[in-house]
């Protein structure tokens, strides 16, 4: 065998039917990524919002603020960056769940020496 790509490949010791590639390509193009239902949308959620304390330096915010200034956004005077934490629930959220989330927000999800819990709320 002298000619063609089949020969090229099989010389490496891997006999390959080029038809496989066509099948592969077709398979790759078919599946559409389905967004899992528990990521966004209908799942019951509690949102916890946390910000670095006002009087502390927020290095991320400062770097972004500087970049925005360099890009000409002179009227943005400062940027501060905090966290949004989503707690997803299997079932409908109860008042007890919300109370528990508020307690967790204060104890584990934030550190009151360096951060403030700004908001804990049910997303509808």
């Amino acid at each position, binding site marked *: 065998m002298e000619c063609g790509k089949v020969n090229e490949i099989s010389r490496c010791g891997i006999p390959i039917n080029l038809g496989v590639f066509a099948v592969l390509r077709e398979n790759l193009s078919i599946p559409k990524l389905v967004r899992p239902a528990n990521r966004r949308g209908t799942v019951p959620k509690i949102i916890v919002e946390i910000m670095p304390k006002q009087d502390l*330096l927020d*290095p991320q915010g400062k770097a972004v603020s500087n970049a925005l200034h360099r890009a000409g956004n002179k009227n943005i005077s400062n940027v501060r960056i905090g966290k949004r934490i989503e707690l997803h629930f299997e079932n409908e959220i109860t008042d007890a769940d919300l109370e528990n989330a508020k307690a967790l927000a204060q104890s584990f999800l934030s550190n009151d*020496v360096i951060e403030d819990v700004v908001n804990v709320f049910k997303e509808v």
Partner: protein
Amino acid sequence: MKIGVITYPGTLDDRDAQRAIRLAGGTPVPLWHADSNLKKVDAVVLPGGFSYGDYLRCGAIAAQAPATQEVVKLAAQGLPVLGICNGFQVLVEAHLLPGGLIRNEKQHFICRDQKLRVENNQTAWTNLFEKDQEITIPLKNGEGGYIASKETLKMLEAENRVVFRYLDLNPNGSMNDIAGLTNERGNVLGLMPHPEHAVEPGFGPDTDIAMRSGTDGLKFFESVLKALVSA
């Protein structure tokens, strides 16, 4: 004397800490974060690294680990505990020490041989130092800026609980130049610099005598052995 060293996912310096304990004359006992059995150790070291990739906040997730919770319980009964760097952050997040640690003032990760002054030589981990002794051990951190409320700082200073202060320069913007502090009882010590990296001639910081000959860190581990023997 058995000294436990807890390994969390992402811990880096557990082996170095174990080696330091061995060089000081103790028996290192590896402990696993998920195991609340501390194997009847006489003291515990929380080593440096990046437990849980510093997710949420440095040390926050490690502070919830079964082994850490057991340490919290036993520390109240007087178990000597040393938190180095990330271990210091874990101690703060576990509320064994007050205050918090934030990103370095200049936002750079810093790695240098750091001069410190021993402010308190009455703790389980510093009793072999002289008061006001100047020592040099490596420092390497990105989030080592110590902060606390004005009231907390005042209390720490009044109770002589600042154990180490940065000398010559403050590398990370820590309030009052605080490099390490202890609890009320003096059995729990947390500090950002790494004593376990200055325990063996040839591998420590430079000194006036010879390159890499600094072994100031060894005294931490010898101190706790002495404290345990006399306890």
